[in-house]
């Protein structure tokens, strides 16, 4: 029922069941919104880069502003060495942002409200950053766990803490995005349910709340995409520059 605020997160099959071996890879509503988000990004940025005029039109301006925004974000947090990873962080930011934003449209599905999606992204980033770190610094990358200027007595403790914090990165990164998205959408659904159940007399207060929450959620949708991207940049910075 619509009264259950969790039904909006349910994944269901669209079309036939597809299996590879014992794995079910059917096309679902989640897949649909992944495809829609990716296509929207590709269409917008393709239009925005098609023709180059000195005075850009709106869509070109949008594409170029996004480009410079992400480019500045990367160079501010990870320096010039992170240039080869620009395309990845750009697509990551855009993908998360568009998935979040498409989720704000009523009756759509929010891809990023699923822990498995955010966890796969975060795990990929974690593994990728670790590999980059070991390639750049060899075993010297392990110095990341040994901060300089720490008393020798505290060192074992600090190293353990550092290792735990490093290993918890994918979890914190994925849970942050997933929890924010899920909590926001659940809240909106709950208040929407109140509007219906309180009726024409009492429903105005939750309705105004719902309106305010929509604004807040759009902000959160952008902010979480930004946080996701900027944390990736910070992890990358650790791997590339290694001064703790």
């Amino acid at each position, binding site marked *: 029922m619509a009264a259950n605020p969790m*039904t909006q997160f349910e994944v269901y099959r669209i079309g036939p069941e597809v299996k590879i071996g014992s794995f079910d890879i059917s096309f679902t509503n*989640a897949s649909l919104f992944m495809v829609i988000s990716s296509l929207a990004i590709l269409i917008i940025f393709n239009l*925005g880069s098609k023709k180059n005029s000195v005075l850009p039109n709106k869509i070109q301006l949008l*594409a170029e502003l996004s480009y410079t925004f992400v480019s500045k974000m990367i160079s501010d947090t990870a320096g010039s060495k992170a240039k080869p990873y620009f395309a990845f962080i750009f*697509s990551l930011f855009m993908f998360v942002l568009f998935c979040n934003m498409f989720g704000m449209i009523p009756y759509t599905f929010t891809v990023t409200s699923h822990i498995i*999606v955010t966890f796969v992204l975060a795990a990929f980033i974690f593994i990728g950053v670790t590999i980059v770190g070991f390639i750049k610094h060899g075993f010297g990358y392990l110095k990341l766990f040994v901060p300089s200027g720490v008393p020798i007595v505290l060192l074992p403790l600090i190293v353990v803490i550092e290792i735990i914090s490093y290993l918890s990165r994918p979890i914190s990164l994925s849970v942050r995005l997933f929890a924010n998205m*899920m909590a926001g959408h659940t*809240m909106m659904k709950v208040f929407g349910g109140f509007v219906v*159940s309180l009726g024409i007399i009492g429903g105005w207060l939750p309705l105004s709340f719902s309106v305010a929450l929509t604004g807040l959620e759009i902000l959160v949708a952008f902010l979480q995409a930004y946080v996701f991207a900027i944390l990736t940049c910070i992890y990358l910075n650790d791997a590339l520059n290694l001064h703790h």
Partner: protein
Amino acid sequence: MIKKYFFHSIFLNLFFLKEVFAAESGGMPQLNPEFWVSQIFWLTLTFGILYIVLSKAILPKISSNLELRKSQIQENIEAAEKQRIESDTKLKEYDDFILKSKIKAKNIYKDAREKVIKDINSKKEVLDRQIDEEIKKAEKEIEVLKKNAPEKINKIAIETSSELIKKLIGAEINSSSISAIVDDLSKRNGDKYYGN
């Protein structure tokens, strides 16, 4: 009824963890592993395609667009700077030209003035000489006239006298006797009459 919905939803929010571990349906659909593989597969596919297309086709284009614009603007600025310098030198040339022509005009004016003054002076001299000559001529004429005047006056006096006598007396008098008297008078009172 309302209360029931309210508490139902509140409980769902606060205690969803319990429900998650308790049941598959009604809990968090996120923790239902039924479609995890599907989601991972489609995420990898869509994100992979997105990354490849963005990094290979679209982002380089945007980057080159930005570079092109930057260089174009830079070029325009440089061209503008060049033209500014050019116009500055032209302005300087113009100023120089104006200054030179001013000096030239001054010189021309000066020369013309001097020439005119010289002309005036020379013409004045000529005129003065001419005037002098005229004056001299006039003086000579006056002299001549002065010399002839007494004779004429005498003649007139004689004629007038004879006429008067004729009218007064009605007698014809010999002009020679009158002229003798007039001559005598003029000789005596000549100075008084002619102012010499």
